[in-house]
């Protein structure tokens, strides 16, 4: 089973009847039993349902109905609602919550015969960059359990890095797929806004949120993206554009492709050892014929401030639905409706979520709306314009995913500004609605570091192509952590 680490390898073995879906599922459940307590990547695992889904996958194969994700065991970030498993969003507010329906992407995955093993740990309501704000305990980085896995999709990244699943599905509002992918040494893609349905994904900031695959390789991400993308009548913001086959172009030549290097991203904020890894990656890509060009994304300096106004504003609105009435935590200390709202919300939300709701409420309140929210929306357009200009000159943009490698657990938790700055290189793609991905680019002191690629809207294919060919000539994505005492 050890060689079955990618989706094509598993598919081939399943179709050749060398292994069954049930055997694969048991292998991963066993690993979860042995290692999850060390990293807390899954907050809910359902052995019985996993085996039932795997049996169904075997039946599909037997009937000749196998699809690209049949029998593939994954983890789902715990903000995609699932009919058969609880959905908590890492919050006390939704402890034990059972949804009456599956999120569109969960349903698409299951229609393909995919095996959902459980729900991945995450920062509460996806608000955090370290997975430390989860009500269900922090998740640890499999490469060094004293360090964070990143966030908010920390459990999703850690479970793939620790080989507790072949892949996982995360979400990215300001870098929540790419930053943990970078910290855990895996590949993660935030597609174009509108590529994948958000129906059934508990909303944090609706104009920024986007779901995406996290896996070892760019090829695995492409296979999953193929199956999850496309119009959904339940999500008006999904695109009706034809979804290309992202796997078809992976091996097309990248000779002559022009990649931009934004000067503003290679500043003092970037760790020098990480900068060296970027230089090495550039040299590898040059050997494949890629040409590099210096560009400017002048308004990067406004990105963090802009994001930390827009996202909390949208969050304050989205999270107003958690009032103790329809679903979620209901306070027992309430005699009036006002008390019920206030006490349920105050007891149900953690500190970081409350802080962001307060910031958003403040920025939207009378007297401050123009100065904060409207100004931030205008700067968002300025950031978009920067990218429009850049993509007239280059095909893709390459930059660091993060300013450095994973920080220690507890290092930034009391300093929100330090935590927010961990997202500085990822936020602009969300503000502009662009696709972006992180791919493993090496190690510094035993911790992984990711390289980010950003493409123009709906141009994920080019990005995946470069990442795939980079992974054919490097082996960073094939490395496995040893800190878990894993001998199998």
């Amino acid at each position, binding site marked *: 089973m050890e060689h079955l680490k990618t989706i094509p390898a598993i598919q081939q073995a399943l179709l050749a009847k060398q292994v069954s879906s049930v055997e694969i599922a048991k292998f991963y459940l066993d690993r979860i039993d042995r290692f999850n307590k060390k990293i807390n990547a899954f907050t809910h695992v359902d052995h019985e349902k996993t085996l039932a889904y795997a049996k169904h996958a075997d039946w599909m194969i037997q009937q000749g109905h196998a699809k690209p994700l049949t029998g593939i065991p994954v983890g789902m970030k715990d903000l995609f609602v699932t009919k058969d498993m609880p959905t908590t969003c890492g919050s006390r507010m939704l402890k034990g919550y*059972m949804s009456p329906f599956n999120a569109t992407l969960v349903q698409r995955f299951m229609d393909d015969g995919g095996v959902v093993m459980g729900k991945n740990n995450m920062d509460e309501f996806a608000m955090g960059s370290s997975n430390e704000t989860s009500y269900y305990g922090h998740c640890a980085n499999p490469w060094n359990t004293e360090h964070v896995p990143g966030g908010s999709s920390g459990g999703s990244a850690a479970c793939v890095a620790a080989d507790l699943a072949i892949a996982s599905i995360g979400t990215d509002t300001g870098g929540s797929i790419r930053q943990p992918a970078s910290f855990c040494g895996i590949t993660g893609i935030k597609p174009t806004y509108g590529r994948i349905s958000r129906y059934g994904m508990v909303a944090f900031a609706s*104009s920024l949120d986007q779901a995406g695959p996290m896996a070892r390789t760019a090829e695995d991400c492409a296979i999953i993206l193929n199956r999850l993308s496309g119009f959904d009548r339940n999500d*008006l*913001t999904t695109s009706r554009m034809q979804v290309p086959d992202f796997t078809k172009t992976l091996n097309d030549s990248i000779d002559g492709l022009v990649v931009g290097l934004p000067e503003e991203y290679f500043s003092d904020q970037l760790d020098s050892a990480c900068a060296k890894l970027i230089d090495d990656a550039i040299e590898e890509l040059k050997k494949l014929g890629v040409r590099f060009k210096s560009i400017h994304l002048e308004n990067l300096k406004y990105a963090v401030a802009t994001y930390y106004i827009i996202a909390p504003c949208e969050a304050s609105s989205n999270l107003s639905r958690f009032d103790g009435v329809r*679903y979620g935590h*209901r306070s027992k200390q*309430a005699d009036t409706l006002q008390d019920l709202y*206030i006490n349920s919300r*105050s007891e149900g939300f953690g500190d970081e979520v409350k802080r962001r709701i307060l910031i958003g409420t403040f920025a939207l309140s009378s007297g401050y709306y123009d100065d904060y929210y409207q100004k931030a929306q*205008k700067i968002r357009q300025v950031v978009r314009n920067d990218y429009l200009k850049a993509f007239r000159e280059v095909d893709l943009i390459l930059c660091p995913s993060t300013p450095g490698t994973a920080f220690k657990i507890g290092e930034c938790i009391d300093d929100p500004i330090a935590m927010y700055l961990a997202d500085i290189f990822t936020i602009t793609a969300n503000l502009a609605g662009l696709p972006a991905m992180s791919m493993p680019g090496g190690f510094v002191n035993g911790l992984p570091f990711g390289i980010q690629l950003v493409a123009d809207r709906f141009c994920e294919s080019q990005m995946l192509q470069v990442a795939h060919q980079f992974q054919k000539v490097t082996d960073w994505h094939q490395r496995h952590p040893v800190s878990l005492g894993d001998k199998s």
Partner: protein
Amino acid sequence: MAIKELDIGIDVIHKTASLAKLKVADSEIGQLQNKLKKILGLCQIMNECDTNSISLVDSQVTLIGQLREDVVDKSNITDHLSQHFDQFNGARALFEVPKVIEE
């Protein structure tokens, strides 16, 4: 208009918490004031960005957007909801909440 250096006073904290339907204990106010001040202080950099020529017509939704056909659809999820909510009155299809009008 520009973002001014703000003194986040106790009154601002109370007013915002009230709007957000959150309770802030007196013992938490000092720390919260400091953190909010830091975060909003970070946002002052936005003043430096010239946005005079920028209009707000664009949005993620309009970049994608096509409205779906406006047709009446049958939707009956009452049974589903009742399974997942303890205080659901099935007979009257109502969510039970605490009494609103006090005597």
